């Protein structure tokens, strides 16, 4: 009786453990093909950008096409800073993963391979702009020159932790650095960012909000709510999707379904959307600059899909060898963001392999020094960290009676 015609489909990644990495299904348009649209681009007009891929750096490390021209005067400083930020980020990831493995904290999440996205983006934002990041945008903090002492303090939950040990090591909050308090619940902050941007517009403070979400979390309800609210009220918000192809063990196909791209999905809401090579530092910087300018002119929200690859494990609790080929990341056809920027800078005569090795070592050393200093204040497990009675602080602005009684019961 069963009708074999009607069957469900189940999206699969191109390769599984034991197989070779396979990215043949991914179409990569040439760099430099797409032009820079006017700032008042509408959804309809954004079609080629939503279905295509904005790229600046070509396979040989040359910066090509109209977006290369869009970077402003001082691209040299931009690139030097960017390279430093990305190297610093990678050094932090490395140090933290090691410390986590040594049992000095509970948990960590790396952003290896995705450094260009946040590092290039953040430098195009303005003071007072507010990012609503996920746990994989530590890059936004690094590029905002967030003191490493605070980052490591939270990592170890010691007395340097700006959040008093309340949050997981990766769930930062740094209002003064334009970084909203991260939630462990996926998606929730996407729509909060839209609300913040509405407040930007209503208060006339000339600032903007930026929303961040992973490809997997685009499935969340708040992704939908955010796009809808942004489409209706047109606040100054940049709606970022970081498509790194994986949601823990789940392939991005389970989040896209038959949609062409995440940018296309956003475009369906009437929000002009672009898709960008997220491993191309210059492409990210150029598009972020364009988006920030668009906000300034009051042309409303924009969606950006940053196309990248999660090279590392999902988190310190995850082992990707159980669900994808070994060294998958190394085969990613859009390369490594640090390598690509380095190659370009060398080609431009601004950098060399030697200086790169030197810088890398120096940055790792700096980071390690900070880490050691901070670790001397104690780690999560040794010695015991923050004050237990602190649990009751900040539940409310003023502590109500029942919490006061509970604090007493605790012995404080």
């Amino acid at each position, binding site marked *: 009786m069963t009708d074999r015609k009607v069957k469900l489909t189940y999206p699969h990644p191109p390769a599984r453990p034991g197989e070779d990495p396979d990215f043949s299904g991914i179409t990569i348009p040439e760099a430099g093909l797409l032009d820079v649209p006017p700032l008042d681009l509408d959804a309809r007009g954004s079609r080629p950008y939503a279905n295509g891929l904005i790229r600046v750096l070509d396979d040989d490390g040359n910066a090509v096409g109209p977006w290369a021209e869009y970077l402003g005067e001082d691209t040299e400083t931009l690139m030097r800073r960017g390279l430093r930020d990305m190297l610093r980020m990678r050094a932090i990831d490395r140090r933290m993963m090691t410390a986590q493995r040594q049992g000095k904290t509970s948990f960590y999440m790396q952003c290896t391979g995705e450094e260009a996205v946040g590092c290039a983006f953040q430098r195009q934002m303005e003071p007072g702009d507010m990012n609503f990041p996920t746990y994989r945008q530590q890059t936004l903090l690094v590029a905002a020159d967030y003191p490493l002492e605070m980052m490591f303090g939270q990592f170890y939950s010691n007395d340097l932790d700006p959040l008093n040990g309340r949050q997981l090591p990766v769930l930062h*909050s740094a209002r003064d650095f334009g970084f909203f*308090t991260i939630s462990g619940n996926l998606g929730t902050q996407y729509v909060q960012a839209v609300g*913040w941007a509405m407040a930007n517009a209503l208060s006339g403070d000339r600032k903007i909000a930026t929303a961040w979400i992973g490809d997997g979390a685009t499935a969340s309800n*708040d992704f939908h709510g955010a796009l809808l609210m942004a489409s209706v009220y047109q606040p100054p918000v940049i709606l970022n999707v970081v498509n790194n192809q994986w949601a823990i063990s789940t392939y991005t196909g389970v989040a896209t379904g038959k949609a062409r791209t995440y940018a296309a999905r956003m475009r369906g809401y009437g929000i002009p959307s672009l898709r960008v090579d997220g491993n191309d530092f210059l492409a990210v910087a150029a598009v972020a600059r364009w988006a920030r300018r668009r906000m300034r002119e009051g042309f409303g929200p924009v969606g950006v899909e940053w196309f990248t690859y999660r090279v590392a494990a999902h988190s310190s609790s995850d082992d990707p060898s159980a669900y994808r080929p070994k060294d998958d990341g190394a085969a990613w056809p859009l390369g490594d963001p640090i390598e690509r920027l380095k190659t370009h800078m060398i080609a431009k005569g601004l950098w060399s392999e030697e200086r790169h090795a030197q810088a890398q070592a120096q940055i790792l050393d700096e980071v390690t020094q900070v880490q050691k200093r901070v670790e001397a204040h104690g780690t999560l497990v040794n010695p015991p960290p923050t004050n237990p009675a602190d649990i009751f602080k900040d539940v409310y602005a003023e502590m109500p009676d029942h919490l006061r009684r509970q604090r007493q019961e605790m012995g404080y």
Partner: protein
Amino acid sequence: MTMIEALRDAMDVALERDPSVVVFGEDVGYFGGVFRCTAGLQEKYGEERVFDTPISESAIVGAAIGMAAHGMRPCVEVQFADYMYPAYDQITQEAARLRHRSNGQFTCPLVIRMPTGGGIYGGQTHSQSPEALFTHVAGLKTVVPSNPQDAKGLLIAAIEDPDPVIFLEPKRLYNGPFHGDHTGKSVSWASDARGDVREGYYKTPLGKARVTREGAAVTVLAYGTMVYVAEAAVQNSGIDAEVIDLRTLLPLDLETIVTSVEKTGRCVIVHEATKTSGFGAELIAEVQEACFYHLEAPIERVCGWDAPYPHAQEWDYFPGPDRIERALRKVLEV
């Protein structure tokens, strides 16, 4: 003044005094809300202050959280408390926790108004009383006014509160007190002293209960519509009960409750919400702990049955004066 007018007046005062106050929700703007609580406010304050939203409770609350964190004071409406569930994630995991998890960097001064309770033949999706789902969540305050005077003062206090406040409006009281007899003539707030609402700005502090009737025999704890139904039961029975209108469920005014139960030695708790794990359970837990040696009888609960709120059997479901009277007699028997 009706409770609807009192609530409108509160928002009017808040919008007038503080430019960071904004009011929004489904049908809240041009039309003024399906219960008319915001009627006229858009006309008065413009669309930037009072506006209509898409039908997404999670997006309404989510956006409001972003605004509140930025520094505004949103006062949003969920059209019926029964429709808050899509926003429950934003309310409990986000609004309730911003201050704590960011160590005070971000806060969430947000009011979420929602009509609650039954008595209007609304069936299972226009009658619910979800207060216990909020009182279980650290970081939220939960308020249930029972009359126009309180409604105005409490709403202004809620809007000025630095933390998120769930503001449950008993819809059966919007137009008048209701003593639980649906066959009786409906009473308007005009004929009730508590409908006499002061003009202009005033606050009724959150966390303070009110003894609405003094008595020595037994303490009745109630809130919202049940305050009147309890009063009716007391009246019918001739029992010398003390009736306490809790007004705020969290923070709870335990002092007023304990003082009363220590005096009476007996306690009956009334609410419309389903019984199991309802707020009545928490009240019992606190009262038995604080007043154990004063209690002469088990504390009784009169609540909504543990079933979906039915349409046609509304008055069999609704905890009416007879059921309350029976409970009063029961605790007095011993």
